[in-house]
């Protein structure tokens, strides 16, 4: 009757559940085995690569041993490369170095102040139809156009020399102003007034003597843009 029917359904459901579980277990096993296969394949490839490398090394060693003339040629080449590199470094240390490009030259002006290396500036020059500046990284407040107008066409050495003087002087003034702010910040009253070219510095400081403090004002003017020392100093007691 009804009970028997229900029993039958229950049994069917139980069987179905068991089958499902089996299937899921099988799936899991399959996935694990696949992953293992991948792992092993990877290992195999790695080992293969290692073997190849070893073989190549062996061959390499053999070749060297069999040809005594080769190492000498190689040593000579290495020495040549080293000396060329050293020469390039010497050029770089002179402050003005360059490299030929397809359409002209690219100059690098390196600056320094009293033993501290500072920024490098670049000029990409074209040679045809006439010498002209294609690109550059010179700061906008350096009078590059004026210097170029005067010397670029006629005397390129002088052009580079004058530009290098301007850049080195600017960088020197800036470095000194930065050092002043950094190391003497406790002695300066208020802020140090400066400008882009660092050719005008104004600051105040106090001098105390016999329990009285005297406020001083200093104005440093650098009229010569190629020098890193002031041309005019005005010290006043306010």
């Amino acid at each position, binding site marked *: 009757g009804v009970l028997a029917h229900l029993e039958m359904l229950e049994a069917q459901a139980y069987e179905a559940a068991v089958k499902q579980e089996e299937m899921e277990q099988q799936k899991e096993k399959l996935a694990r085995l696949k992953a293992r296969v991948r792992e092993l394949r*990877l290992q195999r*490839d790695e080992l*293969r*690569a290692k073997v190849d490398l070893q073989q190549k090394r062996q061959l390499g060693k053999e070749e060297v041993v069999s040809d005594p003339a080769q190492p000498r040629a190689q040593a000579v080449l290495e020495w040549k490369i080293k000396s060329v590199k050293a020469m*390039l470094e010497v050029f*770089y240390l002179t402050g003005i*170095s360059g*490299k030929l*490009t397809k359409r002209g030259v*690219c100059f*690098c002006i390196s600056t320094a102040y009293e033993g501290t290396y500072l920024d490098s500036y*670049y000029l*990409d020059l074209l040679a045809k139809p006439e010498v002209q500046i294609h*690109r*550059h*990284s*010179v*700061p*906008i*407040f350096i*009078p590059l156009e*004026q210097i170029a107008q005067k010397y670029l066409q006629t005397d390129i050495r002088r052009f580079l020399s004058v530009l290098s003087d301007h850049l080195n002087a600017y960088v020197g003034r800036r470095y000194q102003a930065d050092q002043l702010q950094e190391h003497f910040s406790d002695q300066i009253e208020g802020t140090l*007034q*400066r*400008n*882009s*070219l660092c*050719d*005008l510095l104004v600051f105040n400081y106090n001098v105390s003597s016999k329990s009285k403090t005297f406020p001083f004002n200093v104005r440093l*003017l650098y009229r010569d*843009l190629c020098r890193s020392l002031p041309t005019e100093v005005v010290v006043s007691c306010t």
Partner: protein
Amino acid sequence: MDETVAEYIRRTVLKIPRDEIKTILQKWGFLSETQLQTVNFHQIKENISQDVVQLCEENAADIKQAAVLDIIYNHIYPNKRVWSVYQMNKTGEEMEFFDLTDFKKKFKRRLRSALKNVTINFREYEDNAVWIRIAWGTPYTKPNQYKTSYVVYHSQTPYVFISASVLKSNLPLLCQALVVASSYHDIHEMELRSHSLNSLKDIVFKRYSQNFQTYYPRPLQERNVAPENADLRIIQENRSEKERIQRVNREVFGDGPQPKLEFAQYKLETMFKSDPKMDVLDKREPFRCLVKFSSPHLLEALKSLAPAGMADAPLSPLLTCIPQKARNYFKIREKKGLFPGSFVSP
């Protein structure tokens, strides 16, 4: 304290993100530390701004201090405004000393002689930049503090960065005052605009990364590239082409980050080249067309086009010349050589 000043301070404080309000007020320096301690900076901004206004009342703030707060806000968030670049020219070689006090005096005098009702405030920053805030009035009304123009000028450079906002009619007055104060002869607007003030500075001051050929290349920074899958079964077929693209890209764009521009606009006045049978245009007239590229960061997007395979390397010089020519508005005429001219935006 004037009601308009109070309202202005309140609105300025409301603009600042809540977490930054305290630091900005400290930078302002108008309220003492003890006063700032009394404010709860965790409440809603409405209440914070009311408290701040209350403290300003105690200190009797006037429009000058309120203007300084506004300058500080705009200095920290300059990208909320659109900046244009202007270039000044001078004939002759006189290298005059740039004296800041002199500049400020001349500027104020010149501007006030043309229009009395203006509020002018200055603030200097460490990088030799002078920020000028001008609030405009008319010959018959007091300055409107909500109609402001900003000027950023670096001493001894011919470039001025102006964010004019609303009143374009006062621009000639502003330009004239700048020219007189900085001892130049004239000024004109460049075709260069962006939200990012620092990027505009990078472009005209040539501070962006250019790739120069030298025997001493600066060490390339190791980029965080995910190591290529060392699956030896994968072979790169076009490795040499990829390397060529990288090399060409680096030559054009340099190694460092690009200046941030939001758009480049090209106005074309060239003839439409079509199949004569198509007969689109009977008249042989230039086909007027405007091409605008926009992006949150246009130059970086252009830099990544070729490596992503979306464009051929090298890219068109019309796109890559943007930082070097310092312009992002172009007018292109018929090809005798395409040459960019000046463009006046509508």
